[in-house]
């Protein structure tokens, strides 16, 4: 199924690294483990099909890692794992070119799906995805776009309500409308679409 492609896992937490090895291994992927971004960059496996990396690490963080990879011409899709409340970091990673991001704790199904998609990404036409995302963004009303901007910025509903002079309830309604119009199944997908569509927070 993987055609010899390797999933490279980068995480400073040993338990997370080891457990990902077990899960991805059980799902039939070949896995290589790295304790840090520097460790990975010093010896990038030739068959690296996709990278799964934590965004917060001692030394080089996930965003810098993506930038460095791109500078070196490595186009392997990068999946970024973020903690709760790390939306701005996730957005930065998406802008730097991350294929997707996962908020910890995630379901095992979510990571397997994401890795599978990422391994097949090379065939996906990125410009098509961007065109589609821009088309969906264009359907948003002014208020909805404002709410989306702030959501992608990592603001909580309450903060958005205060900023825009709305009630939190109204913000929730706008948020639901945005999710529908953008056809986003999850918050992570919404952020990805917003970044693809070129929304500048």
């Amino acid at each position, binding site marked *: 199924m993987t055609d010899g492609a390797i999933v490279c896992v980068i995480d*400073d*937490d040993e*338990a*997370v690294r*080891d*457990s*990902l090895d*077990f*899960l*991805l*291994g*059980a*799902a039939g992927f070949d896995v290589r483990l790295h304790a840090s971004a520097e460790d990975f960059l010093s010896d990038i496996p030739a068959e690296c099909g996709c990278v799964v990396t934590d965004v*917060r*690490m*001692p*030394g080089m*963080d996930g965003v810098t890692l993506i930038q460095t990879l791109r500078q070196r011409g490595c186009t392997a899709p990068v999946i970024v*794992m973020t*903690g*709760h*409340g790390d939306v701005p970091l996730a957005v930065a990673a998406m802008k730097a070119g991350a294929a997707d991001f996962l908020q*910890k*704790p*995630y*379901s*095992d*199904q979510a*990571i*397997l799906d994401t890795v599978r998609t990422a391994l097949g990404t090379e065939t996906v036409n990125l410009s098509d995805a961007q065109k589609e995302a821009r088309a969906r963004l264009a359907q948003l009303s002014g208020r909805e776009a404002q709410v989306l901007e702030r959501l992608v910025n990592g603001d909580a509903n309450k903060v958005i309500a205060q900023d825009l002079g709305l009630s939190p309830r109204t913000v929730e309604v706008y948020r639901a409308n945005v999710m529908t119009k953008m056809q986003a199944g999850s918050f992570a997908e919404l952020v990805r679409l917003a970044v693809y569509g070129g929304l500048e927070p």
Partner: protein
Amino acid sequence: MAYGLTAAAFAGALILSLHTGDAAYLFFALVVLVGSATGGAGPAVLAALAGASALAALSRDTGWDMVHFAGFLALSLLSGVCGAAKYRNRRTMEGALRDVRAHEAHLQSILKSVPEAMIVIDEKGLVRSFSSTAERMFGYEAGEVVGKNVSMLMPPPEHERHNSYLERYRRTGEAHIIGVGRVVTGRRKDGSTVPIELAVGEMRSNGYHFFTGFLRDLTERQETETRLQELQSELVHMSRFTALGEMSSALAHELNQPLSAIGNYLGGARLRMERGQGNDPATIEALGKAAEQTRRAGEIIQRIRDFIARREIEKRSESVSKLVNEASTLALIGAKPLGIHVRQDLAPEAPTVFASGVQIQQVLVNLIRNAIEALEESDPGRRDLMISTRRAEHDTVEISVADTGPGLAENVQDRLFQPFVSTKDAGMGVGLSICRTIVEAHGGAIWAERNEAGGTIFRFTLPATAAAAKAETAT
């Protein structure tokens, strides 16, 4: 009145002198005495003039008698001086009496306005005076107490013993309470008791021996102190929530690691089981590892619970090293990705302090979190955090947290420990003031100084446990 008397005396003298002739000057001199004694200089001079005129009129019939006239003048002068002196004396006495009365009224008004009650007893213990504040304090009217033994205001066993205390003092002269003052318990008329701060003064007057007791009702003060302590510990407790709140995203991240790992292990195990590999050693090992991660998550939660829990407010002997280790484990959560180089230099003799463990940890967590925030602003290459303990002078233990951050701005250095002074964007500015409250409540001191290596060092001291000092000298 003095003039009336003088006039009457003059009339009497005039009548007498008409009948006696020679002795007339004596009578008129007496009039001067009456005038001066009753009214001072005014009536005396008037009486002398009137006497002189009367003598002059009389001498027209009898012939001018220079000897008698000179005698009259001399006697008038003498009686005038004597009478005036007596008059002055009486006036002075009257004045003094007025002064004494005014003083007494003044004293009474003071005694009524001071918060202390005053009770005077004699050497037999009988109440001689019972102030109105004392009436309010004990619920007795003064009339019910004065003349009775003061022990009626004391609950047992003092009630029975007080007379023997007085007896002992009379015999030995050894003062146990006089001039010292202490907290005693009083008994009200309704039988209830009242905490009292008692100060006793002694007075000897004309062979009599009195004791004056000043009594202050401590009920309100005790309640206030208790309430104040409750409020302070409440504040300190609440500020632990604030400290944790500021760490919440770091704590969430720290909890997410084991939770992610558990999810991964279980997900993988299910995939393997679906393929009939459920009994493989690898599957079983993964489940064991998942269980281990639940313990890891549990420990983090336990650490948070311990920190927030209300217990351990009581002070007891605590190992400084243990306090530092536990506090830094909690405070350093989430600090790893920042690449901070943490070092500990703990005194090997393992001193113990008499302290509330959780509150001292709170101080440490606060200082360490502050240090971490400061270090975030310095170059990733030099992010050093040093936590050290050492025995210091005067039987204290000094704990310090040193960072190599940007250091403190001059303008906050002086106000560092004041409430609502913050250098942080989202800071309430209560952290360090709470730290000071805690440290000072433990009899220690806290201060900040410049780190030689750049950055800031926060130091605080705590008194070492006496037991620890003994153990050290024994070894």
